[in-house]
């Protein structure tokens, strides 16, 4: 569903010798020529680390992102909504798996990435630490959270790292259904009873600002963007993507007959863009630091699910080993008979 610009600047890069510097220059030349980098190609260690972190965080976000929505599967209002929500949550699991696979090609094992998430060493998108209090939140997540994710992920389809870019192509194809189903939920609520419309408004009020935070800190404060842009991992800045999202989303909200919880939101005729108010970055920092409304609950759910699945993984491994042993024994017996 989403990756957030969370990576701190990489300060652990080793001092490069002349040979390393020449390789780095050739590498940059390939990037500048819009060539894709593939898993076995030489790459600077910092590029590998940056991508491993970004792709695994992206994968974690998809996996944790199943929790707020999974919360409503058993309470979806109709069979149609339930089927759609199930399919959407299953897609998020799939997106997580595509992304873990892409990250693994950089040399970090799946188990290690799981450990990082479960031990609380890896981050995931701040947005999933907010609660889904009503059914309208499912609409708002599809419309806004997936809408923001699409803004962010479409440029990633052209990311310099081949496996990540290819995973993003698949993800983006599937993401469009997510956004449309969310908007349709909002539309249905807005055309319903006054109580239903109020529910939709309440969801928009709660999700709007956290969605704007999804794009990460303002450009003036995000130090790592320069290097990511140079490596063509990131093609647009946080603020550029945020602005695109606001411009695309405000008219959609107006069509629903809803208002945005921002008194400063105004159309700038000269620029042809929507100006929005100040984002509460302190809230963003708190949520990232683990103090959002649901951080602890999300992590506990992930840990519990992983622990509860341990016997399944163990049993599957034992079964596969037993089958392999028996096949081996049968082959040996056949050979003996033939001899």
């Amino acid at each position, binding site marked *: 569903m989403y990756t957030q610009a969370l990576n701190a600047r990489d300060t652990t890069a080793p001092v490069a010798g002349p040979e390393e510097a020449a390789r780095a220059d050739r590498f940059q030349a390939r990037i500048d020529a819009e060539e894709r980098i593939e898993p076995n190609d030489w790459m600077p260690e910092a590029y590998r680390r940056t991508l491993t972190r970004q792709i695994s965080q992206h994968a974690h976000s998809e996996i944790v992102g199943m929790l707020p929505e999974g919360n409503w599967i058993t309470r979806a209002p109709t069979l149609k909504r339930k089927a759609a929500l199930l*399919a959407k949550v299953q897609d998020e699991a799939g997106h997580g798996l595509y992304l873990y*696979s892409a990250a*693994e090609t950089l040399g970090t094992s*799946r188990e290690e990435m799981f450990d990082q998430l479960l031990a609380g060493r890896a981050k995931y998108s701040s947005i999933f630490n907010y609660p889904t209090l009503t059914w309208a939140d499912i609409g708002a997540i599809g419309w806004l959270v997936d809408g923001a994710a699409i803004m962010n992920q479409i440029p990633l389809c052209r990311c310099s790292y081949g496996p990540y870019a290819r995973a993003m192509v*698949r993800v983006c194809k599937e993401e469009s259904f997510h956004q449309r189903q969310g908007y349709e939920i909002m539309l249905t609520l807005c055309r319903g009873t006054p109580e239903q419309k109020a529910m939709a408004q309440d969801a928009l009020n709660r999700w709007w600002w956290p969605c704007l935070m999804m794009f990460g800190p303002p450009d003036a404060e995000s130090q790592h963007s320069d290097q990511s842009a140079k490596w063509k991992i990131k093609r647009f800045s946080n603020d550029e993507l945020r602005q695109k999202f606001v411009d695309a989303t405000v008219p959609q909200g107006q069509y629903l007959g809803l208002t945005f919880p921002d008194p400063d939101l105004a159309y700038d005729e000269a620029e042809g863009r929507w100006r929005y108010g100040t984002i509460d970055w302190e809230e963003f920092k708190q949520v990232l630091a683990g103090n959002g409304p649901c951080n602890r609950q999300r992590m506990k759910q992930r840990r519990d699910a992983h622990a509860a699945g*341990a016997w399944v993984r163990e049993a*599957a491994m034992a079964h*596969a080993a037993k089958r392999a042993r028996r096949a081996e024994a049968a082959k040996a017996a056949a050979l003996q008979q033939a001899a």
Partner: protein
Amino acid sequence: MAEQKIPLWEVFIRSRNGLAHKHVGSLHAVDATMALQAARDVYTRRGEGLSLWVVPSAAIVASDPADKDVMFEPTASKIYRHPTFYEVPDEVGHM
């Protein structure tokens, strides 16, 4: 917790008859049966194909990208391998 690692498989899908199987990604599974099942769930949720292959990643032998010049460069100079290298008079017509 030191859990045993689950093997990696590469997944290929034939999108329709007449086309080759194409690599689409990878997954972890303990054996071939579960790999096929997981490939179906992870890579074909929207009618992506008619046939699936799963191959243990460890079974793939790949050329080293660093050797690409040694491997592939020599063909660039062998222009006589292409039909356009040979002259056929216009009067002969299409050949």
